[in-house]
């Protein structure tokens, strides 16, 4: 068991930069927009990471129970996941940037939802469920374990390793956001963050479409 735990931790630490890299374009604008300050940034990234843990445990459970039969299904789910995530980020980004010009009545309510910690948690879950390279590697390893407890233990330690960077990033981003607000209006920072989220959303969306054509061909 110790070998499995260490494998998870080391894999998480090893591919953690790539893992962080996948989440950074979403997490950074999200923190800068609504969760500025070192402590708040750290707290937000912790909630985000907990969301990812839930997603990973879901995968651990599914892989532990269904094994290889589910593996192919998860791979092919990349496309709709990316498209869905992309669409969500576009709506989120547009809402906090130019939403009050486009649909003022809806935006105020939506922004309240998006800036809440529940929203951060949901973002974490969705990002965790969206297959990326580190997750694919972890899933490939988990498939070789063929046991539910081992799979759960492995994914938990994989999450622990990969979250180290995300937490540090959250704290640093929050602090930088706080510095930025001293020079710029908070509304403007939210707008810029919203645009960045929309651009990331468009990219996710197009990547999803690309995968869709790969799988369908």
């Amino acid at each position: 068991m110790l070998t499995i735990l260490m494998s998870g931790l080391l894999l998480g630490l090893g591919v953690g930069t790539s893992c962080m890299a996948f989440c950074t374009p979403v997490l950074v604008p999200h923190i800068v927009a609504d969760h500025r300050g070192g402590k708040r940034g750290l707290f937000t990234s912790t909630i985000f990471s907990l969301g990812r843990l839930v997603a990973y445990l879901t995968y651990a459970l599914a892989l532990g129970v269904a094994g290889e039969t589910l593996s192919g299904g998860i791979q092919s789910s990349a496309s709709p996941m990316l498209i869905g995530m992309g669409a969500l980020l576009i709506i989120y980004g547009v809402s906090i940037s130019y939403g009050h010009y486009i649909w003022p009545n809806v935006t105020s309510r939506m922004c309240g939802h998006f800036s809440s910690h529940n929203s951060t948690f949901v973002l974490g879950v969705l990002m965790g469920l969206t297959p990326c390279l580190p997750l694919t590697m972890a899933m490939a390893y988990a498939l070789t374990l063929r046991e539910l407890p081992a799979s759960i233990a492995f994914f938990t330690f994989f999450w622990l390793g990969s979250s180290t960077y995300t937490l540090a990033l959250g704290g640093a981003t929050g602090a930088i956001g706080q510095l930025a607000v001293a020079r710029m209006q908070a509304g403007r920072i939210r707008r810029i963050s919203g645009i960045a989220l929309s651009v990331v959303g468009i990219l996710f969306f197009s990547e999803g479409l690309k995968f869709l054509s790969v799988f369908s061909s």
Partner: protein
Amino acid sequence: MNVGKYGKALLASIGVFAATLFTNMNMFHEFTFAFLYGLIPAISAFVLLVAKRITPLRRAVYLIFTFILWFGFDLIALHERGSLILPVGKLGQTGTVILPCPATIPMIFFGWMAYGQEVFVPGSKVIFPTTFNLFLIVFGLMLLQGVLLGRGYCGWSCLFGGFLEATASGRSYGKPVKLTLEKILKKPSNLASEKEKTGLKGLFGVREEVKDVKWGFLLAISLISTIALRPIFCEICPSRVWNDYPNPASGAYFWLSISAIVGLFVVFWFALPLLTRKKLWCNAICPLGAFVGLLGMLSPFQVKIDREKCNDCMLCARVCKEYAMTADRVAGSGKAAFECTKCGRCIDSCAQGAIDVYLRGTSKKVRSWFIPISLIFTFTWLSVFVWAIVTMLPSML
């Protein structure tokens, strides 16, 4: 008075000549050619400093610059690989070395910071297949030009700006989208009416909110490029309409990329500039413009209005293609906004002679410094492509 003006222009043009000759001696390996090449910016500097208007000659130099640049760029592509299509997987191939485009600097730079120099070794973590030395040269030149001139880069020597300069040419009338020919051809009156002043505040006119798109775009593509290990903007860059277009063999990637490239080109580089006579792409979207603008916070040059001479005619706000001189700014501080490319249009348009390039934070006019320095940079960038044409074209004909 005139003797002073001509003397100053002559001194400046000698400086431009010496600097251009110095920077291009190694490039051309032939003194006569470098000498003749250096004469062009020197004469241009002289004429620009003694002429009453900056815009006509600056625009002519800019358009010729763009044409030579892209002709040279395409020639290099044809010479090196025999095609304007970017072959599949070419960027990841060992041994491929490409001159880094300045637009990729902010994207390559963060990757370099994150992963170190090994990204420049082809075949390993390729962010952009170039050598470290080439990257440093382009980065250094961009950094120097950005810090010295700020978005003056965009108005004088942007690799992409010449096309927009052409499509956005002509009078701008304050209001953004002019769909009828009658309105496009209508000349502005000497003094702005209240209606026109209101028009200057339209959504695509001068609202500061629209300008923020470029910051968000720069933030997103810098983050994504850092993690994707490639300059992501290249995949949608509208300039690829005439160079390095994606290979149809790339399947879905080709269709997504080419749709974005053509779509952005048609909308932002062609239709909107033609209809609005404004450069919406440059001031609201371009990540390179945003990056250079950030560096420009250190620039010693600032375009501003002498409020004592200003009669609030708003002609400067109406002719400004970058929404840098806005109605609020004219009435307020008189300083052009961050987006100012120092193109000289507002200076030319002001009948009161109230606008000029100043040393930041002072009332000292420094146009005679700004123009020569801009020309030196323009002709330094251009020399690479002139060199390509001179050396490659004869063997290809």
